[in-house]
């Protein structure tokens, strides 16, 4: 993997320096966001994508504070709503890779409906879940992925609700790309992000990044994740095997499977399924022009 830090000659493609933003990071010491923030820049550089060629969409939460800590066309919107905005953006310009970032609060509570329909629609978009299993930015309330029984801000006796089995839920929606990675393993994260961005030509890529929240998550800590995560590629996992993928994704009692868990490149993306767009080679962004509607008016005579 060639990831230049500086490129003396821009014709050779982008370097890490091109993604450098003057703003400094503001996350807590030991936050998993550092690893994700680093790996996404590495993946974009490795894919030879310049900042002006990509659109990075951020939900609201600690991860959203990355939106002004790297270059690239960026959007930082509303809590829970990043997926529909990103999907609309992508459908308008299929030439631009669109990557959406969201936390577990935004994705499994406030905006869970969008996640369901994004997977079902198979939008050609990459989604990176910053999964720290709590609401960090609002000071440590439980999310629907927080373990039951954990005392949290606003639920000192633990949450009465059951924790959502997020991977079982994701697989129940017939996804076309599912990966899981750990924010401490930047090399693997980079590889997974690259594959997830490249999957946009087939459809929706879901990447669950397990990350530490040293301030508020005292159960799934960095050490815990470090110990439990293993790379499925080292065990010869076949990413085309839906049943096996679902099994290793959902069973986390002993070990946590990471890497690309499942990929299906035979299902057309939402855009490819649009009858009205078949045979059209331009994208909607390049089609804005005054249109003669005489043919439609004739039907009203």
């Amino acid at each position, binding site marked *: 993997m060639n990831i230049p830090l500086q490129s003396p000659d821009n014709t050779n493609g982008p370097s890490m320096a091109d993604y450098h933003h003057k*703003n400094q990071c503001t996350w807590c010491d030991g936050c998993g966001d550092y690893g994700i923030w680093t790996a996404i820049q590495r993946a974009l550089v490795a894919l030879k994508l*310049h*900042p*002006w*060629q*990509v*659109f990075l*969409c951020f939900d609201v939460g600690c991860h959203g*504070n990355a*939106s*002004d800590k790297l*270059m*690239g*066309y*960026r*959007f*930082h*919107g*509303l809590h829970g*709503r990043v997926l*529909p*905005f*990103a*999907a*609309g*953006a*992508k*459908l*308008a*310009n299929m*030439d*631009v890779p669109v990557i959406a970032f969201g936390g577990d609060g935004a994705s499994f509570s406030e905006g869970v*409906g*969008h996640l*369901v*329909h994004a997977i079902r629609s198979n939008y050609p978009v990459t989604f990176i879940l910053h999964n720290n299993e709590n609401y960090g930015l609002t000071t440590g309330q439980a999310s629907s992925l927080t373990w039951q029984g954990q005392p949290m801000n606003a639920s000192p006796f633990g949450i009465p609700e059951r924790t959502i089995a997020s991977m079982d839920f994701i697989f129940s929606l017939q996804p076309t790309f599912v990966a899981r990675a750990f924010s401490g393993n930047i090399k693997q994260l980079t590889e997974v992000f690259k594959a997830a961005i490249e999957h946009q030509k087939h459809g929706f890529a879901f990447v669950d990044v397990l990350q530490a929240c040293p301030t508020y998550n005292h159960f799934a800590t960095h050490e815990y994740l470090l110990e439990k995560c293993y790379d499925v590629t080292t065990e010869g996992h076949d990413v085309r095997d839906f049943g096996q993928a679902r099994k290793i994704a959902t069973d986390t009692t002993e070990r946590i499977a990471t890497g690309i868990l499942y990929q299906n490149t035979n299902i057309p993306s*939402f*855009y490819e399924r*649009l*009858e*009205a*767009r078949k045979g*059209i080679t331009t*994208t*909607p*962004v390049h*089609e*804005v*022009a*005054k*249109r*003669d*509607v*005489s*043919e*439609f*008016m004739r039907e*009203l*005579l």
Partner: protein
Amino acid sequence: MSRISIKAVGSSGQGINSIGEVIAMGLKRSGYSVFGYREYPSLIKGGHASFQIDVDSIPVRSPGTKTDILITLNHHGFEHNLYDLQKGGIIIHDVDYWEFSKEDQRFIEENDIKIAYIPLDEMLKKLKARPILANVLLTSFVWDMLNQDIELLKQLVREQYQHKGEEVVEKNLECVDAGCIYNDPKLGRVTVSLPKPDSRWKDQLLVTGSVAMGLGALHAGLRVYVGYPMTPSSPLLSYISSVQKEAGLVIKQAEDEITAVQMASGAFHMGTRAMTATSGGGYDLMTETMSMNGMIENPMVVVLAQRPGPATGNPTWTAQGDLLLAINSSHGEFPRLVISVSDPEDCFSLMPEAFNLAEEYQLPVIVLTDKHIAEALCTVPAFDQKKAQILRGKLITDPKALKNLKGSDRYDPSAKDGITPRWLPGYEAETFNAQADEHSADGSIDESAEAAKAQMEKRMRKMKGLKKHLPDPVLYGEKNPEILIVGWGSTKMTVLDVLERLGVEKFGPAFAPLGASVGKGLEVGYLHYTYLWPLKTELFERLAAKAKKVILVECNYQGQLGMLLKQQCGIDIVEKILKYDGRPFYFDELQNLILQNLQTSKPPNLQTAS
């Protein structure tokens, strides 16, 4: 000979719309201005629904309360609509078991109501035709009653059914033949005279506001439409979807209204023209995103098709109750444009305006319509396709100009007019952050007092330029009216019908349209507001100061435009004609209300806040 009205009533799903649409199109082609108006409950089958066609040789843009020909497909028409009939009116029915009450009989006799029975079942059996063809029999029967050319009707039937094959067309034509020669044995052949036709209507369009709005959006370069069904915005979704293949559109029926507005916003942000439409409840869900678009200065067009609220309200009826919602919706203060269509011509011509202004001022635009405009069929001239231009403001796509941009140009607070360059993901330039948090010039999060103040002022400055840019409200009728009527939205159609006909009765058609005066030498004008926020009040203030009387006409409880005018210029319109029962103003109803108002109340009726 004045306007006449034909009304088909029955259960939803019985086919009254097909009767109404065929007669409306037929009469338009015969040289009449027609207005098709539907009332129906929120049900797929059953209930009591109506399709009314008002017909005239001068423009007709509103329904009346009275009807000349009532076609009833079941006995409910006798129960609900008998008293809608004009003196000398006709009921057409096939209900052989109905007995009128004594009171009804008295009404029928006193008003010389004719009752024509048509044995539909028996005729269908003889023709070996399916029950749905009863509609064709009825249409043809009425067509003959109106003394219209049967070949014209046959042509329409052919056009409507040719896609179903020759056999279906033939069976329909047999029914046309049978319907037009049938006469009630007791009544004999009954005819109703129409005004003298005028050939100018023949080449005009028969169109609903929804279709006109869809065409206007396509004309304006719409490429992406995201919707979620909600009456009365659904016909727009249906129409745009129906032409998606020909127009090569990206269409998405979203999982909810939040998704719809977010997707359309994302598409607009990338640089295409996108929109969504909904009604009040759905719009409530979209409001957070409107605020977001205000903050990131993203152009957006949202159609808000009004129906009566609060809550689910009256889903299939009309209202103008969401004006203040459109203007005040969403948290925080941000610039926005609120405009309202009033008829299909507006629906077409204001869509390019909405898209242009959204891009020129980089703000969300709310286009108000309502059920009445969305679903009523109007006769209008073919839409003018010369006028519209595509104006995209400070959108930069030229590679050289892009090279010179800095990320901090995007939200540069020093921009005099508040409008800064806008450029698009995927274009080679320095990048920026479309930041919904308060930000500095390049979209970096900035919570400083300086940035908060500078960016708020930058955004709100756009309203100043926009207000200057917008046209004044339009004055119809007299230039210096003694009676000034003020309104917005679909109310315009009824107001103009009333003014025109009052003029016609007094001074003859030469004074039409709308140059005529009403009543004892009083000159009447109608001031119509299309652009509602920012609100221009200079013309209103000037006219109100001179007028002997000002009357506000709106379809809502509070007189929301009146509230807004009072807030903006201190003038309180005391005389109000307001309606909030889910129905639009009917022609004769509004005429009576205006005349009553002129006769009973005395000027002065304006109060100026001190």
